[in-house]
């Protein structure tokens, strides 16, 4: 199957995980999907998640402090879940079939 673009892939990933996923879990899967690696792409995934959150497509479930395991010590790790609006946008934009 042809690959989705990054935002589409993240949205579909979160649609499959109704209980939500941590941003580092999402980053790991995105990097594996597109064969990317390194800080730049980790940053891209975080920026993309911020976009999706600002647009109300995602909501935050919980957060905790990164102790240096994932994005760097002192950064916030966030667990995201798809919102009903995000679900609706996926249907409207053809990312989910009704």
């Amino acid at each position: 199957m042809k690959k989705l673009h990054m935002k589409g892939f993240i949205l579909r990933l979160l649609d499959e995980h109704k209980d939500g996923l941590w941003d580092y879990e999402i980053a790991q899967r995105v990097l594996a999907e597109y064969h990317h690696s390194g800080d730049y792409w980790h940053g891209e995934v975080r920026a993309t998640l911020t976009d999706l959150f600002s647009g109300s497509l995602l909501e935050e479930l919980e957060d905790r402090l990164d102790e240096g395991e994932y994005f760097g010590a002192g950064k916030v790790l966030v667990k995201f879940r798809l919102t009903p609006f995000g679900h609706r946008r996926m249907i409207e934009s053809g990312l989910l079939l009704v």
Partner: protein
Amino acid sequence: MIRPDMPTLEQARARYRVRSVRWGFYWALWCAVLWGAWYVPGTAVWYEAPFADVGTGGQSEFLLAAAIITALSSLAVLLFLFVWTGVLEKWGEYGRTIRQFRISKWYYLGAVFGGPCALFGSYLAIGYVGPVFAAIAALMYPVVGATLARLWYHEKISARAAVGITVILIGGISIYAPGLLSEFANPDGGAWLGYIGGLMAAVGWGVEGAIAGRVLDVSDPDVGITLRFTAEACYWIFVILPAIVLFSDADVMSLIVSALNFKVLLWILLSGASFGCCYVTWYKSFPLIGVGRGQAIAALYGVFAVIFLSIFTLNMPEWYFLIGLALTVFGGFVMFTERSEMLEVIRGTNPI
């Protein structure tokens, strides 16, 4: 391991929130700087051969010149965006987004409003009336964009943001109003086409911004803007210019060939660089702070246009420029200091 210099969760959370919103404003401010800079090459190209002489050939030749300048500009912007996409290693994402037609089609629609409507209109306004009029006419575009974003997909516009947008607009108008009066007093022939061009710029960029705000929530801004200019370049090369060749008596090819000289190409490349970077920052700001705020901060381009045009023409701005400058900066400040909790989610099912 927890280090003693590490922030607490609350501190880190606050910093994270503020940073994402600030980046939205920074992108929009860069857009304003680069947009203002664009008026220099955008105006200068009209003073180079063959465009400097087209006024003698009547209005159809003038319209043709504006079409050719816009077409060449869109190609120059696309060139820079292709480099940008390559540097960011996003060619794969470009291909994947094209395949999502229900998403990419919005960029193709945005290109109609931003290109043949707004950019062409802006060049008409510059050519027929003057750069001052062109800049002020387009300043109205955040009103169109914010209103559409509010009505169409319920973007949240707080009372404070509305005040900020209004103050920036008043500031922009006060910068240009006196110059505008003198341009009205001495318009070149066919000024009404320039006024229509100004209206096309305001409506075109407003509608394009609202469309972009809609589609950027499910796609990447760097890729989205490249798709939008790919579409615009295609419209000019494969649809509009061939249509002009077919249906008009104008000698399109000879004008294009004579336009391909060093000076014109230099201005076109400079305009492509400034406008390409400006558009990237414009699109990047929308998902973070919303179309209404992003467009209003970007409307500070009015201030930067005056500064850049003054530097390059060595005509210093008048005293009233300071009043306009103070107002636009104050309007930006009103929005910038809005609490980040109000801003971090720009859209809601229950708009405020």
